[in-house]
């Protein structure tokens, strides 16, 4: 089996790792880079627990081969907080109790970030459809949706010129 050297940027840091040709990006993140915040709930792109942002696009890390990451810019949950300062989404998830077991939370947060990166003021329906690929079995989504909408409001507030 041939393994190849992959160079990419993960959470702003250049990384180099060895990847098998058939290895998923998720396995590479978890097993090679030990970034275990991205979770495997299904391995088939149905649950979104492994959501990461690659070159600005939200993807399931389980549905991308590790060698494809060559030259890309990858954002994972480990990079969402800025130097120890929680992102407004992380704040709101905590404030609103938008997690119970917390297993789907990293994926939900990354998916929500990708949404707010392109839509500063999403409707409830837009949030729900955008997050349809992120399964949560604990919360019934109510508090998750509220947290995302309130984080959007926080971000809009922070953007306002003072």
């Amino acid at each position, binding site marked *: 089996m041939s393994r190849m050297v992959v160079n990419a940027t993960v959470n702003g840091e250049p990384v180099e790792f060895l990847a098998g*040709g058939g290895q998923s990006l998720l396995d590479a993140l978890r097993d090679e880079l030990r970034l275990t915040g991205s979770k495997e709930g299904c391995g*088939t792109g149905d649950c979104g627990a492994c959501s990461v942002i690659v070159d600005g696009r*939200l993807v399931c890390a389980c549905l991308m081969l590790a060698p494809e990451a060559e030259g890309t810019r990858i954002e994972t949950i480990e990079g969402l907080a800025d130097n120890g300062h929680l992102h407004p989404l992380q704040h709101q998830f905590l404030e609103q109790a938008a997690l119970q077991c917390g297993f789907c939370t990293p994926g939900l947060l990354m998916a929500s970030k990708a949404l707010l990166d392109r839509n500063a003021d999403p409707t409830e329906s837009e949030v729900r459809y955008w997050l349809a690929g992120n399964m949560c079995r604990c919360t019934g989504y109510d508090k998750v949706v509220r947290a995302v909408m309130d984080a959007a409001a926080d971000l809009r507030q922070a953007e306002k010129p003072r």
Partner: protein
Amino acid sequence: MSGVDYLAPASVADAVSALRASAGSARLMAGGTDLLVQMRGGRAKPEVVIDLKRIPGLMGIRGEGGGFVIGAATSGAALGEHEALKAAWPGVIEAANLIGSTQVQGRASLGGNLCNASPAADGVPALIAAGAVCIIEGPAGAREVQVEKVQAGPGKTTLAADEILLAFRLPPRPARSSDAYLRLIPRTEMDIAVVGVGVSLTLDAGGVCNAARVSVGAVAPTCLLVEAAGVALVGTTLDDAALAKMEAAVSAACRPISDKRGTAEYRTKVACVLARRAALIAKDRANA
């Protein structure tokens, strides 16, 4: 997945020669959202994966001859962000954007959707209805073929083992033309279509339909072009009688199976319902 080699050729020629060199042990990958699932489940065991996304012509959308050429590996998300394409072919784009979740949209492509050859592929009925043409490259050079000629059965296409689907050509759009795609799934998202229907049509100045194509998915081993359904609409204003005739044609064309996703009877019934609804949406859009 041991022993899998990953190749990312930068040109079509390199991809074709890699494909030939693999002697049948390679799989082409666009977004990979079907292939990786099959590899994980052991249903696909390629020795080589040829990633097409680094080939310029396979990615992106360009205008050509009044129509559009869509690179076969272009992601659904990129299609949805192309305003001109969306305005001309809203049905094709809504179909492409129904494939999987937001995450899957970041990867899944119409080319992959077609070549995966699922009878329930969301993108395919819309492309067939649109009259889209596939641009295919092989050792003998390029050829073009109608989308409806590509699927050969579940998981099978009419492409030769050493051919590569490069792009789709969407024809120029006459005035007062539009299209629509509808599917039925039990949930609101994330399901495979139980039935999918694409309708594309053109109206004349008086609102009479002068061209129409209807295609259905998940009701036969391949997505079908139902020519009689399109014929039923031509020359009408999509009145109840015409729609009933179209539904009868759709119903006659359906030969579904009963499986975990739906019964044969239900699929046929719903195909008619969706065909009528999609036709009316396309009509409204064409009038708009």
